[in-house]
């Protein structure tokens, strides 16, 4: 074996060890979710145990996890769709009808994303109260759509600029309406980009906690709020059940993120890094 090959193998081993260490807390959570409550608090910790599905049966499928997950899914999907519906035409204008003010508008949009949530929670709370939006899906959907809108506009504008304008001109010569331009020309070309954008918005919304915990109480609370209060409703033995609930809460996003690793970078930097 050459020295170079040996070096690569050592590199691989070292890196995988580091990666495994970083991942370990997540693995431990998943493992614990399959332990009995007594195994979960055994000391020293049990590395080998007989797996049980009891926690999943009790805490996830039998408990309110599914109900809260329903809230999360509904809020996440609806707010993402709304952000896309508002952001797609905006991106179209930004990409193809540039004016002197376009760059300014784009930057301003980005700056709204930097407004600290804690800085505006009080008036949002009061507005939600006055509009009867507290503890409703609609309230969070409207809010999260706005939260993700700058991201959508930035990313989709970037993707649209990569579309050759000749394609649009060709469609126009054929007499295409705006709607047809959207659906026949742009949408098919932008599907991967839109998917990446939607995925990122989904991740942000799914994991959001600050607005959710302050603007909902029970009926519309998403999973993040449920996970944060999970322990309170349990007796002394709760670690394994809590692990099952936490695992169920993070798995969809973990998988989505794993699939979209490459797009993640583009989205995280709002298209600044492609």
């Amino acid at each position: 074996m050459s020295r170079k090959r040996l070096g690569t193998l050592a590199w691989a081993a070292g890196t995988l060890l580091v990666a495994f260490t970083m991942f370990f807390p997540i693995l431990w959570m998943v493992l614990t979710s399959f332990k009995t409550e007594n195994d979960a608090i055994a000391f020293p910790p049990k590395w080998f145990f007989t797996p049980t599905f009891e926690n999943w049966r009790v805490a996830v499928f039998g408990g309110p996890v599914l109900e809260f997950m329903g809230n999360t899914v509904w809020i996440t999907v609806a707010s993402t769709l709304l952000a896309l519906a508002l952001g797609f035409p905006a991106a179209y204008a930004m990409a193809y009808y540039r004016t002197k003010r376009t760059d300014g508008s784009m930057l301003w949009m980005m700056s709204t994303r930097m407004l600290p949530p804690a800085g505006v929670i009080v008036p949002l709370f009061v507005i939600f109260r006055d509009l009867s939006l507290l503890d409703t899906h609609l309230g969070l959907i409207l809010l999260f759509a706005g939260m993700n809108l700058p991201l959508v506009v930035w990313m989709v504008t970037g993707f649209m600029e990569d579309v050759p304008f000749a394609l649009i001109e060709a469609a126009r010569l054929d007499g295409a309406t705006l709607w047809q331009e959207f659906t026949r020309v742009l949408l098919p070309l932008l599907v991967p980009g839109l998917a990446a954008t939607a995925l990122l918005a989904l991740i942000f919304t799914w994991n959001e906690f600050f607005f959710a915990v302050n603007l909902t109480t029970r009926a519309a609370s998403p999973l993040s709020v449920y996970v944060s209060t999970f322990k309170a409703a349990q007796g002394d033995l709760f670690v394994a059940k809590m692990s099952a609930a936490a695992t169920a809460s993070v798995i969809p996003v973990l998988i989505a993120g794993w699939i979209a690793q490459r797009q993640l970078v583009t989205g995280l930097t709002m298209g600044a890094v492609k």
Partner: protein
Amino acid sequence: MTTSMIQPKRRRRIGEGRRFLSAPAIVYLILLTQIPFALTIYYSFTNWNLLRPGSAGFLGIGSMFRNYQRILQNPDFWQVLTNTVVLTLSVVLVTFVLGMAFALLLNRPFPGRTLARTLLISPFLMMPVASAVVWKYLLLDPAFGLSAWVSRTLGLPAVYLVERAPLASIIGIVSWQWTPFVMLILLAGLQSLPEDVVEAARLDGAGPLGLFRFVTLPHLRRFIEIALLLEIIFVLNVFGEIFVITSGGPGIQTTNLPYQIFLEAFSRWNIGRASAYGIFAIVLANLAVILFLQVVRRARQEEGR
């Protein structure tokens, strides 16, 4: 920030009205951010407490800054501010070092690289609240947590980190979550480094350290800037981890500005005071961004660019 945005494109005059297609999005954002922002300012000049119906009045010209005065006179405020800044800077520092190291590890083909990257990005995808419960109850628990087992195995006394070093615990957990973020962006930067530039430097006799210092780092500058800027903005707002793990305690040792606002608004219902704190949070966020950009500009000037 993308280059294509800076060059205006000449388009056919057809449908010039379509440039207003951005109006709904802009109006939506104005409604959602500027109105609350204006209201935050207004409320900060009131004496409103939700528990005292009918108290929503303006404080009066003479004492309109009372909420601000009270905050500035409160020694706890400085502690909270310090916590916020220490938390943010520490996380940025730790994640930068680790993120850079991990990115360098991944920036080389080896068997299992995709697996390693997948594992490494996972902490960032975790719901912060879920991370918090996992760390608090599974890993750091003084009675049966893994940390107790590790310290026992190493023959060290078992300490409850969350109680002994609360802010450091929060910094560690938040850093664990954010390291992948920095890593991903820096990795993208490393991978966009043209191979021929590296080769040329090697031919000029650059060692690995010299290569990193004089070729890789300058190339990464823009990526580092973006990663750190975004991270500062997000970490200033850390909330869920504190909510779950320490509730801001013991004492106020882990209370940051967002958590303080939460307490003021939702356990004292002091809308006026909470709004004034909110203004401080907004100012702090803007200051952080401005300061950061200033540092970046100065660094550039010093390099004579």
